[in-house]
């Protein structure tokens, strides 16, 4: 097998053996390689958590910032240099817990970035507390009587926000996941891919098998542009739908709304302020 350009070679990875993160990492690397992306044009942005370590295991630019804050960072990076492919990749606690407000407003803003969420329904790195997506009844060291708060449904929320691309995948199905991620990266605008991922150390409830047993794929007959249908699909009782669940192609990406790029796409680092215009502006204050 040819070496994947995003592969870091023989490195120490801090995940537990058997963790679903490995599969996601590999799937993302293979998808980028297949898409012909080069490491120098891709920036991974993450928060803090087990999933958030992913960029360290990927040959590319990366910005491993603060817990919950990957989305504003990713938005800014894209806005500072629209030529980059920006992927915000982090965990469910990071994106849906601490980072919830950014999630809402990034969906409204619609930057052309891809948002991959490793959804293991638990806080891995901090040792097993409930995450917003933890299922009802899950007992943890903090939720000692079991989770009773309504599990967060990122798909329903994204559709309610009219996010421009909403998809769900499962780490156990690398092929389908790769295809979904490819579409997400190719989509122009904000694309959410929530990826179910087993945490073998702390989530004994939602295992690889549980995810396999409790998911199904939407098929060719599914129309992802029908918002009401999509909402019904993602809020239906029972198994979780996988695939590209909602797409709104009419929304304009954030960067394209910025006057700074009306004339050219030159990244900001190459620009300098227009001295003459500044002098003119100052002169108007006489």
């Amino acid at each position: 097998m040819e070496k994947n350009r995003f592969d870091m070679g023989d490195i120490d990875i801090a995940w537990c053996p058997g963790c679903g993160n490995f599969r996601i990492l590999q799937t993302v690397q293979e998808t980028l390689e297949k898409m012909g992306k080069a490491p120098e044009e891709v920036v991974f942005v993450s928060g803090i958590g087990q999933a958030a370590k992913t960029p360290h295991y990927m040959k590319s630019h990366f910005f491993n910032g603060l817990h919950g804050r990957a989305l504003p960072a990713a938005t800014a990076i894209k806005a500072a240099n629209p030529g980059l492919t920006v992927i915000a990749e982090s965990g469910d606690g990071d994106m849906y817990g601490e980072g919830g407000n950014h999630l809402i407003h990034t969906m409204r803003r619609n930057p052309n970035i891809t948002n991959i969420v490793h959804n293991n329904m638990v806080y891995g790195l901090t040792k097993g507390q409930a995450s917003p997506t933890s299922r009802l009844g899950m007992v943890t060291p903090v939720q000692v009587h079991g989770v009773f708060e309504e599990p967060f449904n990122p798909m329903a929320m994204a559709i309610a926000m009219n996010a421009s691309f909403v998809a769900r995948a499962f780490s156990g199905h690398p092929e389908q996941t790769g295809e979904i991620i490819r579409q997400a990266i190719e989509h122009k605008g904000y694309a959410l891919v929530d990826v179910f991922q087993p945490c073998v150390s702390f989530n004994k409830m939602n295992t690889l098998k549980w995810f396999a047993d409790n998911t199904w794929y939407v098929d060719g007959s599914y129309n992802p542009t029908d918002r009401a249908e999509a909402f019904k699909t993602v809020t239906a009782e029972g198994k979780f739908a996988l695939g590209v669940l909602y797409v709104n192609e009419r929304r304009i990406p954030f960067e394209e709304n910025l006057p700074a790029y009306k004339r050219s796409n030159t990244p900001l680092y190459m620009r300098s302020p227009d001295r003459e215009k500044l002098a003119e502006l100052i002169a108007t204050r006489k």
Partner: protein
Amino acid sequence: MINDVTIVLGGQAGQGIQTIEFILARVLKRSGYHVFSTKEYMSRIRGGQNTITLRAADRPVSALTRHIDILLPLDPGILEHVADRMTVDTVILGDAEALSLDRAVLDAPISRIAREAGGKIYESTAAVGVLAGILEADQTILRDYLRVYFRGKKPKVIDQNCAAADLGYAAGRKLCEDGSLSYSIARDEKTADRILVNGAEAVALGAIAGGCNFISSYPMSPSTGVLTFLASHDDTFDIVAEQAEDEIAAVNMAVAAWYAGARAMATTSGGGLALMGEGISLAGVLETPLVIHLAQRPGPGTGLPTRTEQGDLELALYAGHGEFPRVIYAPGTIEEAFLLSARAFNTAARCQVPVFVLTDQYTMDTYYDIPEFELEAISVEKHIVETNAGYQRYRLTEDGVSPRGVPGYGSGLIAADSDEHDEDGHITESMTVRNAQVDKRLGKMELIMKDPVPPVLTGPEDFRVLLVGWGSTCQPIREGLERSGRTDTAHLHFPQVYPLPHQAQGYLEQAEKVIVVENNATAQFGKLLILHGGREPDGAILKYDGLPFTVEELADAITEID
């Protein structure tokens, strides 16, 4: 003969005192007077009591005076509001009938004039006319300026405004000719070329000059003016101006924008900064540059949202967890606001640290005529390198600064990691690497110390008493000191408060008595002097009621020092 007149315009929010002031200040300046203007206002959109203080003088004036020569109250409530600023000499000007005060009012029939000119909406212009007449501003300049100001309006409206101004002007002149009033301010032809820019504009213009092309902020008084100014010029200067969902997004965007090569700033006030601490610490560990404009207002909590204070110096100094260097500028003049804002971007880029520009509501809302900014003096220092394959973002270097690459420029990969990291930017748990990286980061302080903005001494070189101030107290202290007439006292103003510039040492040692002057209750800069200047202040002049110092109260306080 009075050659320095203080006019106070007072009214409810929405009554239009700002229009009067805006036009009048410009017309007076163009007529050859030096002008100063500032405002104080309540946290409400309509009603309440707000005032604008405008000085017109024969020489540059740049500080708030307490006394009032002419008061123009659009609302009777204003009189109580400014009661402690009134003297026996204060002339109350206005529609005597409408105001129905139990004090003597010098009748300026503004509403009648407005009616004559075409209706109530011309009252502001009529008032401008009256005041321009009293001060004998150039009537042609007034007319011309009105045409500029109201351009876009219907010709009839423009004409009627001019008529209101003319009638007002005549009424104003008449009051003087009657002998009711008499001012005769000498003119200075150089004022025509001087500019009127308030603190908010100066910070924003300085930022543009320093290469700012990204601002992410959340509205918060009194810092919003910088955001709106940059946003309203985004297409002229290719600035990405984004209203963030909250201050946390704002600071994280700014840090990441720098990472990607932008020159970014966030503008906020104390409550917002209190939310940005983690993001500031992020910049500290990532060693990205970062510029934060902090316009202070009184806290704690929501405090007094539209008032002024210097209560967040310590917050700026210690915001963020963990240990990392930073720089804090605190402009005391409009020129400094411009220059230091520009410089903040270069310092941030050069040293890869967060740089604060500390202002306050008083600075934001104050202006006076100054020479046009010299753009030639300012360069945009990018401090970015083209990377190659082996690029290491956190390479250990002599001075602690690792050459900064940005994604897409060169073949290197740019790692930014908030964990403790090795030179490659990858997570480490090696204690040796940890020590090396801490030493590298903190070591940059030495580099920063090498190139400080020196403190500025005003007054006698052989002083015995030294008044020490920072930020917006600069001009009031200067004028207060002048008025006090003391010859044994000088004023040391710090445009850079942290790190404390080494040039301060000699002055602090020379002083028999160091008195800090601060717009807060706990003498925060005084504490900084103890810590970093090795000098415990011998006294403090403090004010924390939400208002700036006036020249008079400082003159009094300075006179009382023994």
